[in-house]
């Protein structure tokens, strides 16, 4: 057991360390641990030999299907210029005024991340912010940082808004619609917390009050941007929008229709390839294969470690430390929330989610109610990313853009003062939110692992 736990921890260190590509780290960990597992006939490997690898992966094929399908769809939709068009349209409507622009960009980030996931949305928003700020002569820093922090709120809106959601939602079989009932409302609350907090923090960073002459000058500058200039084909723009909307609706209807979310994602991707894309080769090449391989490696590492019983042991330890019982899980919820948030602030939230999923499964198997545990994990491992400059890819992208644009290197201290403060309030709010929902019986029941 010790070797496998050490192997898993080393893999996580490799994933977190910048020296290694995280995909290489996870695959290397998988290769080593599988080799050992097969050699010593660990658990299922003893019964099935090497083919047990396929048994481990078969449970996660749905996640991979969602990543592939949404990857194709998001790339094609982005290429149609739809989100660039919408972003510029919204920005123009603010007339360039600092206050309106600030709130519009935060709101846009929230919505775009909910629809596109963090990376594509942040690339669009960061580039939009830089271009607009250059034109209007604003400092990009408040916009970039606020956008990055609001992005992590957007990431908890739906099942497909973030990779941890996809992993947790697939494993726990959480229907898409449940996200709209549970996490989406808190996503809005957490975004409001972020916007209020950051608006206060940046109260001297932008000219919040502008004279009429200044407003007129800004309006003339912003009017020089025409959203249609970015669109190469109206037909493809409209088709992309329709296919994206159809896919989102499909996600919501997947469970009643009896199909998996991966089916809907792949169907959406295929529709985009058929109706909204010129180059199929280019679209498929753009699927994030490094992420997929990273997941495969990660699932295999966790799968091997699960066979040792280490994660069950960890689950028991967690329950013991919390002092919780199935009748009174409050401290367990608090502990899981804090741990997942802090861990996500330090390392990528994907391995955090991947490790905590089997632990929560063990806890649920021992008699605890599943819903509050899954939801606190979803909320906190996303929001935890606001805690440090490396906690979330949105912060990494925004800080890199800020450095490239202005040469300003935002230190850990400065960021933690902003992001860390927001994160503390958001995570405290998330834990309280989950406890209230649990106390009032507001969580929709899951079809399995539900309330006993």
């Amino acid at each position, binding site marked *: 057991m010790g070797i496998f736990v050490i192997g898993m921890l080393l893999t996580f260190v490799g994933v977190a360390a910048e020296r290694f590509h995280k995909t290489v780290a996870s695959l290397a960990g998988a290769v080593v641990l599988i080799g050992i597992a097969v050699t010593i006939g660990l658990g299922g490997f003893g019964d099935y030999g090497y083919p047990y690898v396929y048994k481990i992966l078969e449970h996660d094929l749905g996640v991979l299907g969602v990543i592939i399908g949404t990857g194709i769809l998001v790339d094609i939709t982005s290429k149609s210029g739809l989100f*660039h068009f919408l972003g510029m349209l919204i920005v123009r409507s603010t007339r360039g005024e600092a206050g309106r622009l600030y709130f519009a960009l935060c709101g846009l980030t929230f919505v775009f991340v909910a629809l596109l996931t963090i*990376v594509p949305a942040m690339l669009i928003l960061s*580039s939009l912010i830089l271009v607009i700020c250059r*034109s209007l002569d604003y400092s990009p820093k408040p916009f970039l940082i606020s956008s990055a922090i609001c992005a992590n709120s957007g990431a908890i809106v739906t099942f497909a808004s973030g990779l941890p959601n996809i992993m947790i939602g697939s494993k726990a079989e959480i229907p898409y619609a449940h996200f709209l009932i549970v996490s989406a409302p808190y996503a809005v609350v957490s975004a409001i917390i972020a916007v209020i907090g950051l608006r206060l923090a940046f109260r001297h960073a932008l000219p919040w009050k502008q004279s009429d002459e200044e407003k007129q000058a800004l309006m003339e500058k912003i009017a020089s941007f*025409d959203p*249609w*200039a*970015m669109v190469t*084909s109206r037909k493809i723009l409209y088709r992309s929008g329709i296919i994206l909307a159809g896919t989102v609706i499909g996600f919501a209807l997947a469970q009643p229709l009896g199909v998996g979310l991966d089916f809907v994602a792949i169907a959406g991707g295929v529709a985009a390839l058929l109706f909204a894309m010129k180059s199929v080769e280019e679209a498929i090449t753009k699927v994030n294969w490094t992420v997929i391989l990273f997941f495969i490696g990660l699932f295999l590492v966790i799968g091997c470690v699960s066979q040792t019983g280490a994660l069950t042991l960890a689950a028991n330890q967690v329950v013991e430390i919390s002092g919780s019982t199935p009748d009174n899980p409050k401290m367990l919820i608090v502990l899981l929330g804090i741990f997942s948030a802090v861990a996500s602030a330090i390392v990528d939230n994907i391995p955090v989610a991947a490790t905590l999923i089997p632990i929560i499964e063990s806890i649920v198997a021992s008699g605890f109610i599943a819903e509050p545990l899954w939801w606190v994990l979803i909320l906190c491992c996303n929001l935890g990313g606001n805690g440090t400059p490396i906690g979330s890819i949105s912060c990494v992208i925004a800080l*890199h853009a800020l450095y490239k644009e202005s040469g300003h290197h935002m230190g850990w201290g400065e960021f933690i003062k902003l992001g860390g403060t927001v994160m503390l309030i958001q995570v405290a709010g998330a834990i309280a939110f989950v406890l209230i929902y649990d106390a009032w019986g507001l969580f929709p029941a899951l079809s399995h692992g539900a309330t006993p």
Partner: protein
Amino acid sequence: MKFDKDMDESMKLFKAAQVGAAELPEARRPKRTLLVLDGSSQDLTTMQVGAYLRDELGSHLVLLDARENEPKGDILEPMKDFDGTVLPPPPVDQEGYDAILLIAGEEKCDLLVVPCPYERDFENVGADSTGAVIDVVLAHTTIPVWVVRSALLDGETICSQVDVVINRESSASALAAAWATGLIQTGGSLKLVVALESSAYTETIELMKKVKPDIDIRAEDLINALADAHRNLHTALIKAAGPQTWSYLYDIHEEPEDQAGFPIKPRNHTLNVIGFDRGQASAVNQLKDRICRSREMILVVPG
């Protein structure tokens, strides 16, 4: 950082949106059109063009019948109730190009429809020559010239597909677009084509690399620069398109070196509209080459 390239591309797209007020020049339609018949197989197409201009756009037609032989069949057949002006053949000692330019001026025409090659069938001359007549007409005309190359095939219609072709910087691009939007059929398909022929820049890039070996410039950069220079036009066209007007497509591509030989991507007979700055030798050569290699009609709009 691995996202730098994606971020740069996204920024380029947003920067390209800064086009200012994108207004399309008012659509141009011919009031008086000079149709030239030369006895070649292009004559039937010329009359079909005339019929379209008269019936759909209300243009008054001036017909210069320069055919030397007895007319074969009733040339006015495509045009019922011809009510335009019919001019006799020019004197035998007058060159075709002189006659065309003179009459166009006297009749105050604002569009010329001229067959090319003049007095020869397209199938005989093919991609080898445009002929002296069209060369001189293009060199001296101040009004657009509709160059008729070959007969329409069954099912092909006039101006259901119109391409505005931009293959170099030209002061006449916006005017070319105005003519394209004026001539296109309602419900037709208008395409803005930004295309650089590799012969136009390969040698220049090689020379630049000799001057500055570490320079990193590719065809893609030049094509994108040409597209960016005409982003305003694209924006105006995409906004003007719609179910009541025409559908719009935007095509940016590099035309490969071995595109010599013809035809240039024959499709349902497309009218290619090209802005043309007279006085630039390279522009003249490029235009003549394009006319040579095309069986489709080309509208040359002088700047």
